[in-house]
């Protein structure tokens, strides 16, 4: 066979090229479409609610995926920084996937439940007010825009989320009830960032916050908290740094980098409770404070044992004690 004739037959050549590019495509892309490993189903991982679906679409519209990834790699430091590594079944409902390719900002795969809603209501429109070194844009227009729900029922149907139009309407009404109620835990901050005419409506910001709070929560719910037992195990009842000024000074720095954005200057309080006090919700012994910081608490206190380690948590506890003595 004379292969040289191939270079004299353009149509045959084009067909040959199609065949050659199809081989790798078939093996690495087409066949995997039908393998169980690429579409693991697990009832623990639930489709997005109506509001979360809308919030996700705003996330897509604003191109958040250009700066934030949503996949934690199975690397020790990555798991320590963000939480457990990502599983295939977590993305089962994701059309499109939003794993991203770049981290100008941190990964968000585990951000759900990490902070209270109020944190996001403050942070999303004005990140630099909380973190001066941040270069995230202020997404000011989200709170000023009423959420468009005219397509929600269609979206849910196309996505195959498994519920119908009346259920969509019910979910939206329930959600609106929740975030506009005076008893909503983040009501104060929400009212500060939402213009008066929209206070009683669902805004785009409400939807984005709902979506962010969903990320990684199904996985967390499906596992016993890994930090809990670890924290209990790590907790010695006595603080090795108690009353040591040098350690308190270091604790101050640790506090300012990791705690101040929620607990305020000198622990005066903010999204998180006041710390310069002797009344602590989960008990006020050194061991109690350690357990709160290391293992986290429901309602938005993250677990700090993986990123900070025992040593720095004890120093932070020493600093909190120092604040109490100062009586601020």
């Amino acid at each position, binding site marked *: 066979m004379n292969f040289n004739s191939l*270079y*004299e037959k*353009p*149509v045959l*050549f*084009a067909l040959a*090229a*199609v065949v*050659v*590019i*199809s*081989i*790798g*495509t078939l*093996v*690495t*892309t087409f066949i*995997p479409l039908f393998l169980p*490993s*690429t*579409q693991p189903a697990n009832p623990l991982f639930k489709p997005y609610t109506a509001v979360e679906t809308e919030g996700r679409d705003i996330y*897509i*519209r*604003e*191109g958040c*995926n*250009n700066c934030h990834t949503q*996949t934690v*790699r199975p690397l020790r*430091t990555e798991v*320590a*920084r963000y939480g457990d590594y*990502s*599983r*295939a079944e977590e*993305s*089962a409902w*994701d*059309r*499109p*996937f939003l*794993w991203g*390719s*770049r*981290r*100008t*900002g941190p990964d968000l795969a585990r951000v759900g439940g990490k902070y209270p809603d109020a944190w996001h209501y403050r942070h999303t429109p004005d990140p630099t007010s909380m973190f001066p*070194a*941040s*270069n995230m*844009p202020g997404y000011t227009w989200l709170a000023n825009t009423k959420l468009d729900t005219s*397509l929600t029922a269609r*979206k849910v149907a*196309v996505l195959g989320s498994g519920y119908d139009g009346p259920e969509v309407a019910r979910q939206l009404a329930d959600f609106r009830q929740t975030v506009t109620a005076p008893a909503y835990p983040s009501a104060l901050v929400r009212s500060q960032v939402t213009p008066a005419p929209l206070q009683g409506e669902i805004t785009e910001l409400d939807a984005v916050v709902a979506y962010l709070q969903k990320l990684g929560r199904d996985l967390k719910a499906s596992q016993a908290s890994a930090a809990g037992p670890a924290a209990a195990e790590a907790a010695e009842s006595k603080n090795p740094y108690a009353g040591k000024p040098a350690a308190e000074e270091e604790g101050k720095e640790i506090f300012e980098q*990791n705690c101040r954005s929620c607990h305020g200057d000198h622990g005066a309080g903010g999204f998180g409770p006041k710390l310069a006090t002797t009344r602590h919700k989960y008990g006020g012994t050194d061991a109690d404070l350690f357990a709160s910081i290391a293992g986290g608490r429901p309602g938005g206190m993250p677990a700090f044992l*993986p*990123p*900070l*380690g*025992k040593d720095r948590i004890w120093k932070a506890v020493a600093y909190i004690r120092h604040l109490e003595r100062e009586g601020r």
Partner: protein
Amino acid sequence: MTNGERSDSIVRGFALSSVFWLVVGLVVGLWLAAEMIFPALNLAPWLAFGRLRVVHTNGLVYGFTIAGIFAGGYYLLEKLTRTRLAFPGLAKAQLWLFNAAIALAALSLFAGMSTSREYAELEWPLDIVVAVLWVMFAVNVMGTLVKRREKQMYVSLWFLVACVVTVAVVYILNNLAIPVSLTKSYSAYAGVNDANVQWWFGHNAVASVFTFPILAMFYYFLPKSTGLPIYSHRLSIIAFWSLVFGYLWTGAHHLMLTPVPEWIQTVALAFSLFLIAPSWASVINGFYTMNGNWDKMRSNYLVKFFILGITFYGLQTIQGPTQAIRALSGHLHYTEYIPGHVHMGTMGWVTMVISASMYFMMERISGREIHSVKLANVHFWLILVGQLLFTVSLWIAGIVQGAMWKATNPDGSLMYTFLDSVAAMYPYWAVRFAGGLLYFAGILVFAYNLYMTSRSTPGTKWSAASAAGSRAACVPSGEPG
């Protein structure tokens, strides 16, 4: 052929369109680079980084590069077949539709109508327009090839055909979606499969837009502008088929250490390393073509563009495969190293080759010599230095960033918060902006010089004798013993 039988006005139209979108895309890019340092520049929703970044990538991939491919592709197609385009009217319509589509695409992305899939962000109605445009291009390429008056198809035509079929296959399959409304759709694939299909596309868009057609131009315009035959025809054959075969296996190297099945990642890693060979075959072909004639780097203003271009292609095709190695991916992926890598390819390889090809074409289309060789040299040095500042600063930034994310204390806890790593980036981002500015200045010189050349003025007649080796044959020769 005489001038009247060539599609000069179409080539000129695409070349000038290409440079126009290049300038627009770079203005957007500079704004983005400044936003990284001064977030206050995110003045309005349509100027916010998340939307603007997509305008930048699409404007330059589709506006600049594809228009450059249409210009260079049609030019070398007519030359190498010694035949007029099969459907000149269709190509004319394609020129107008193309520019309308890019303008619409930019507006839709500014408005936030995005699918979020990297390099395929356009929503479904525009995807259909892109597909129509591509069919118009394919019909002309294949039609002209069928009508051709030159028996053998030269290597540039192979790469052009590979570009035509690969773009068609990957673009259409990746963009399959279920519409919700005119401006909103959901991907046909979900989760892991969506990621796998998207990066099979994303990587092969690099193959079929930034590699095959640019190589087509390199293999045609380098011998034409030097008068030297390409070093080895046999090497071209091996390079072509192994490149086209290997590329399609490697998409998952963008997905190392994600939930994509491990075997797909490993296959992608293996083929990424394999791809060094066919990539470097073209590098060797370029370098050895110059053997004994390196003085042309000085005497012929076009040669240094091609040689530096293929040098950056060589660096790019070493760097890319190494990034697939899990240990390096674990350190470098998601950091600034990756934009650094991409920009060496686009600002180094792609821009260098397209620049020189356009100068060459414009001289012949306008029937005059280039407006100013001196300005072309200024253009060369500005884009070279600008690109190096840009990419090297981002590589260092990425290595620093990866190291900060991984740094631990003796007890295993993390040494730095994420914000520490952001704060450490500002000096590098400043250098990157400066590099971008230099590069942009070079492109403005290029645009001016090309535009002045395109205006045919009497008294500066171009003659075959003045351009060294304009009659260089493109027939394969010079086989090594």
